[in-house]
């Protein structure tokens, strides 16, 4: 760093101007070096791939979000079933306890009948406990869906970073490479799930699109 002389501190405005001048000089040198070394093409490639990377991350966020919602819906339905089961068991249990009390006081029930009544009441009590345990498990399943919020926030940050990087790279590319010399983005032969179908006309958005296309071809 021999070229860089310590700037005089006496005049802040002059010092700022000197720093800006040097930064401009360094930037120009960097641009020239990138062009001479052929890195402008690589910068262009890197920049062109960033929107695709952002779309794929957004796709991950959307699909995992939908999965989390499905799980929460299933948990809600299971809770409703559990609640109904618990209420039915409580109702039957109290009625059978009344029968048990009646049977214990007289001869209206055989010993085998009494035993059956007692075991039924015990079973109903057991079902109540199992319903409680199932509810605890359902809560655990529900809480595990917080991954969507947590990973989603990370993805949003990475997407924002990629966007910033893309903008900076684009500026660099524009300054180092004439537009007519920009390389075209090589298309992937197999690109996996389509992450932004609405922006394209060479893909279908859903199964209906597949079926319609096949039907139009006579299949």
């Amino acid at each position, binding site marked *: 760093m021999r070229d860089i002389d310590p700037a005089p501190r006496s005049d802040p405005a002059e010092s700022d101007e000197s720093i800006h001048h040097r930064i401009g000089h360094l930037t120009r040198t960097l641009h020239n070096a990138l062009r001479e070394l052929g890195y402008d093409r690589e910068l262009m490639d890197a920049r062109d791939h960033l929107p695709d990377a952002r779309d794929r991350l957004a796709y991950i966020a959307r699909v995992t*979000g939908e999965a*989390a*919602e499905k799980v*929460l819906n299933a*948990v*809600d339905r299971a809770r409703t079933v559990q609640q109904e089961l618990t209420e039915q068991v409580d109702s039957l249990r109290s009625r059978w306890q009344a029968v048990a009390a009646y049977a214990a006081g007289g001869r209206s029930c055989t010993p085998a009948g009494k035993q059956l009544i007692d075991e039924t009441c015990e079973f109903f009590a057991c079902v109540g406990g199992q319903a409680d345990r199932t509810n605890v498990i359902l*809560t655990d399943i*529900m*809480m595990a*869906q*917080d991954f*969507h*919020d*947590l990973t*989603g*926030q990370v993805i949003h940050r990475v997407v924002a970073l990629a966007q910033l990087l893309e903008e900076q790279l684009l500026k660099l590319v524009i300054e180092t490479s004439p537009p007519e010399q920009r390389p075209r983005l090589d298309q992937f032969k197999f690109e996996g799930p389509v992450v932004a179908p609405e922006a394209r006309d060479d893909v279908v958005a859903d199964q209906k699109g597949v079926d319609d296309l096949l039907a139009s071809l006579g299949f």
Partner: protein
Amino acid sequence: MTADPRFLIVDDFSTMRRIVRNLLKEIGYGNAEEAEDGVVALSMLKASKFDFVVSDINMPNMNGFELLKNVRSDDSLKSIPFLMVTAEAKKEDIVQAAQCGASGYIVKPFTKATLEEKVQKIMTKQA
């Protein structure tokens, strides 16, 4: 605090809103509404009476800090308990929340027991 306090859950992720709402119901608070950011939340708070706010911090349009400041600077809202439930774990954020008047602060991921403990603690203070 009323017998059936009305909660406002503020989070930009619908998954988290549902989780908090279900947890509140499990711990005995089934009266809850949802808002997806601070702007919507503030509008709801001004439009009708709420007894408790559970809010995320990192949200678009108006974040949790801004919402909290708006709530605390509004004479009709300033006494509402305001619990932060957020992934922001930086000390400076926690300190800032306290300085802005947050009633409590929970870092995600959290458990049902944590939410219950914080809510009950705030409820007890309010009583």
